[in-house]
Each structure stands twice: as C-alpha cells, then as structure tokens.
C-alpha cells in the first residue's frame, strides 16, 4: 500500500516536472538552458516509464535523450548566429497559432486518455518484461530487423557522404593515390 502511494506521488511529481520543464524550454532566454530544460523533461518522462515497470525502455529513453541533448546543444549554439545564449530574445514564432494547436492537441489526447474505456487486465505481467516486450515487438520478424539495421546505418552514412562538400577525389587526387589525404583537419589514423 505504502509503495503504491509513493509510486503515485512520484508519478504526479514527475508529470508536473515534465510539463514545467517543457514550458521552460520556450520561456528561458538561453539556448543552453532551453536544451537542458528539454533534457530534464525527457529524463522525467523516462523516469515515469521506469515507474511503469518498463525498465529497459525507461533507462534507454534516459540514455538516448541525454546524449541527444548534449549533441543538440552544440548544434543549437552553432546555428543560432546571434548569440542567443546571452541575449534576452524571444525564440517563439507564430505564437497564437502554436498555442492554439498545442492546447487543442493536449485536450484531445488528454480526454482520450481519460475517457476511453480501457480494458481490465487479464492475468499478470510476464516474469521477464523486457524479453516479452522484445518477443512481442520483433518475434518472428527478427531476421528482417537484423537486415534493416545495417541498411539504415548505410543510408545515414550515404546521406552524410552525399552532403559532404569534399569527396574522394578532393581528398586523394584524381588518381585516388595521394598519400596522405589532403584534409584540412587530418584524423589520427592517417587514412
């Protein structure tokens, strides 16, 4: 009983923290603060998922989101050319439309979550939730997943290669034989 109460209180606290941190993203003046307010919001969501006994998903959410926010902070500062980190500057656009859409979707989804007649649970959760989740998600399609993952990585790499301003011929010369490669910032392995 006590455990339930604690879980309940934690759930509400984390929920409120998530929403407040989300609001903070748009209210603070600094890019770095906005990014890390978003990180706090995501970590709180990950913690809520942990409370729901979905351990793997919760911890992986926290892991991925913190790493993403760390990288995103770099890009945010890089692309916002007016030093927004130091300037009190309004970073929201088309305020009214955005606010209306946000409130409307919140009301829609919230009322859905509250008013839909959810079925009662039959049976107990399986002993190993992570394994059961894995089976349910992938199950017989494991081979497809294994093949798709390298294809996705290859697509990302290909996209970056296509977007890069300098190709093999710029680096290695017309006969692809220049040693060492002509890079403005050479790497450590001497490729």
């Amino acid at each position: 009983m006590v455990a339930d109460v604690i879980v309940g209180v934690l759930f509400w606290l984390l929920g409120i923290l998530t929403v407040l941190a989300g609001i903070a993203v748009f209210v603070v003046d600094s890019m770095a603060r906005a990014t890390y307010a978003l990180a706090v919001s995501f970590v709180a969501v990950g913690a809520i998922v942990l409370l729901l006994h979905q351990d793997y998903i919760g911890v992986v959410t926290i892991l991925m989101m913190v790493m993403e926010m760390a990288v995103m902070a770099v890009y945010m500062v890089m692309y916002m050319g007016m030093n927004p980190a130091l300037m009190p500057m309004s970073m929201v656009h088309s305020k009214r439309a955005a606010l209306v859409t946000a409130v409307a979707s919140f009301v829609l989804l919230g009322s859905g979550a509250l008013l839909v007649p959810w079925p009662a649970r039959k049976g107990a959760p399986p002993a190993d939730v992570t394994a059961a989740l894995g089976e349910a998600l992938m199950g017989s399609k494991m081979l497809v997943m294994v093949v798709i993952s390298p294809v996705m990585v290859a697509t990302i790499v290909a996209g970056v290669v296509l977007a890069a301003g300098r190709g093999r011929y710029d680096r290695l010369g017309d006969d692809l034989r220049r040693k060492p490669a002509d890079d403005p910032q050479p790497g450590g392995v001497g490729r």
Partner: protein
Amino acid sequence: MSDLAGTDAVVAVAGYWAVPAAALVGALAFLTASLHAMSGSAVSGRGRLAAATVLVREVARLLRQRRRRTVAADVLLWRFATAGLVPLALLKVTVIPFGRWTLFDSPVGVVWFNAMDVGVWALVWLAGWGPNAVHSLVGGYRFLAQAVGYELPLMFALVAPPIAAGSLRVGEVSAAQDGLWFVVWMPVAFGVYCVGVVAFSVWGPFSVAVGSDLAGGVLAESSGVDRLLFLAGRYLLLVAGAGFAVPMFLGGGAGPILAGWVWVLVKTMLLLAAFVAVGHRVPSLRPDKFVEAAWVVLLPLAVAQDMVVAVVAVGRT
C-alpha cells in the same frame, strides 16, 4: 567461506545502506586520489607522512578557497554541472553488487550504468559553457569530440557480457562467470571498457577537457567548492567504473578463501591502481586524432568481439 561461483543470486538491501555505500566509494576515491598525488610527488622526494596526507591538505585548501563568478556567467548551469558529477557517480554505484548485496537490483543494470555515464557528456559541456570563458568553452567542446569517439565502442563492449550471460541484470552477469571469467575470453571488450572508463572519468590520457594546454580547460575559472566537487566527481566516476568491471569481467566476488565482498574490493583496488599508473605514464590523447582511431579501429574490434561472443553463446545453448 563463500565462493560465489555461480550459486547465489544477488540480494537487494534496504535503502539506508546507501549512506555507508557512498562512504565506502568516497573512501576508495580518496585512496585513488592519494595514490595519484603520491606517485606524482615521488618526483620531488617528500617525506612519507607528507605524501600520505597530501589529499587531506588539498581538500582543506579547496574548502578554504573562495568561489568565483565570471562576467555574464550562466551560474545556474555552471554550478549544476560542477556539482553534478558526484551524484551521477553515486547513482552508477547503486547497481554494482558488493559481494551478495546490491542497492538497486535492476533488471537492466548494465544499461543503467551506461545511461549514467552518458550524463557526463552533458555535465562536462555545461561546465565548459557556464563560465563564459574561452578556455572553458574550448575544453567543453573538446570533451564532446572525444566523447563521440569513446562512447560507441564502450557501449558495444558493455553488450558483450550480457550476451554471454543472457541477461542485463548485473548479478546474473556476475554469476554467469562460473569458473571462467569473462576477461579471459573477451579481452577486447575488457580493454575497450577500460578505455571507456578512463575516458568518461576525464582522467589521465583523456583529460583534454581539463588539460594544461588550455590553462585548465573546463576548470580554468573554477575555484573553491565547485572545483573540489568536480575533481571529486572525476575520482568517484573512476571508482564506479573500476567497480563495475568486477561483476562484468572479473568474476564478481568469486575467489578462494576470502568473502565475496573482500574480493570485490581487492579487484576494484587493483584496477584503480592500474588506472592511476595509466594516468601518469600515457600522454594525453588529443580528440582530433583519437576520434578517427576510435571509429576505425576500436569500434570494429568491439563489434567483432560481440560477434565472437554471440556465436559462442548460441553454440552453448
């Protein structure tokens, strides 16, 4: 006699044990820092007593020193970052079994450990951003460049023991090293893991974020309690990393005669001594050179190791 080889599962203990656990980890961090300072001062030939108390005196000095603020610094983020390494390291330690006992018997303990060390990315960058100073900022960005290099090989190395043990629970990984420790047939994973630990502790060859070529880097503008917390956090992370290697690769509490928790301590301390030696003897690894080596050499090695482990695991069932 409690030889833990593959028999008992790990038992979760009550929450109030967190305090003595934190004290133990703090003591280990203190010992590591003392060892580091002592082997450094071996050069100057000071007396033994002076060498042994060097860390107490350094802590006293930092406690006595005033804190600083710089112009237009983001004080909230700065203080949060310098103070944040300590709780992060303590959170990591909660999943490490100390003999038979653990504070947090999570079914995904390995992933929890990894999630916490990703927090270091955020904190070190924030510590560089906060002071609004050139050297700190460059230090923070250098850490991120280096982090991009070590993180993926570390993650793949951390995957290998769970594949062999069939579980992400740290206690089960520890118990699955029945007779043959993982370090013996997964040496590459162990090596890459150690590189990862030294790197996320901003230690030794990976301390470019606080390097002398940047006048102290991230710590260039920190003083007093903030500096102390950041430096303490580094050592605590090192202890957490060394401690985690024990159930993952070094057989947990397994060993003859002595109790399980004694063996955990012994193995952790041996690994910490190795890390301190590495800190003295290995020159700093610059991120621009390290990143390419990490992606082109370490990562394929780690993935190949995972493949070998997976084949063996499938073959065993």
